[in-house]
């Protein structure tokens, strides 16, 4: 297995979607190739950083507009509903 093969299989490797034989071949290569180890590790960290990042709070004006629209819509759509009161 060559470095370009590692890159080609990288997404499935990180998603653990490879068959065991191919995975073993990749891991053998990673044991011998520092550059590929760094690429795999930093790509994994890239995913983790985005995946674990918390969304910022809504700007107050955005939140107010959203909730005004919902109040208007919900009131119109369910005129008889009083479960919130």
């Amino acid at each position, binding site marked *: 297995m060559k*470095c*370009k093969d590692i*890159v*080609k299989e*990288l*997404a*499935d490797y*990180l*998603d653990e*979607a490879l068959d065991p034989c191919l995975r073993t071949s990749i891991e053998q290569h990673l044991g011998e190739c520092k*550059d590929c180890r*760094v*690429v795999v*590790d*930093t*790509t994994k*960290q*890239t*995913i983790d*950083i*985005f*995946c*674990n*990042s*918390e*969304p*910022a*709070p*809504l700007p107050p004006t*955005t*939140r107010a*507009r*959203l*909730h005004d*629209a*919902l*109040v208007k*819509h*919900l*009131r119109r*759509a*369910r*005129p008889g*509903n*009083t*479960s*919130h*009161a």
Partner: protein
Amino acid sequence: MNSPKLDPVPAHPLPSQVVKADEPVFVARAKAGDVSAFETLVSRYERKIFRLTQNITQNREDAEDAMQEAFLKAFEHLGEFEGNSRFYTWLVRIAVNQALMKLRRRRSNVVSLDDEIDTGEDMMPREVEDWGPSPMERYEQTELSEILSRVISELDPPFRIVFQLRDIEQLSTEETAEALGLSVPAVKSRLLRARLKLRQRLNQYFRRGTNS
């Protein structure tokens, strides 16, 4: 009649990977006509949905409109939600559609999501530098958020949107393909390209010795 009361913003937002186990309970109550249950779902997901629409449209006004329309549509069509997927996944798909409509309207020259994209160019990473452990801890939360917004905004829409759905919203490859009308191999090749481009762009912030 009193106006519906909206839940306050949760003091501690949900971890990204967690959809609370009580989601089906609130969905069932909302479907039965309990407005406050739907409001709870809105409060729970409004930040995530706004980040999603913002990352797709790259325009604050469009993002706000798309988010609002997504929640209103979800409410209108709640009766059609059969519970075969998580409510959040269903909501994400509605929000993606609304955001894509805004993006296409504003950028008529934008490459269509389902166009063939040449991913055959050499993808071998050129910058191979170790980041060390926990590189994100070198930045304050606000600064880190700005960095992430900046680097993802630099991706072309077909890559940015696939990454957003697959790696940030954590839809499966199949769900991402279905939401975007793409084949599974197309999602995979765009995802690989997006991950490598983002890795390369984050390298300037996270390689060892940066900001330390």
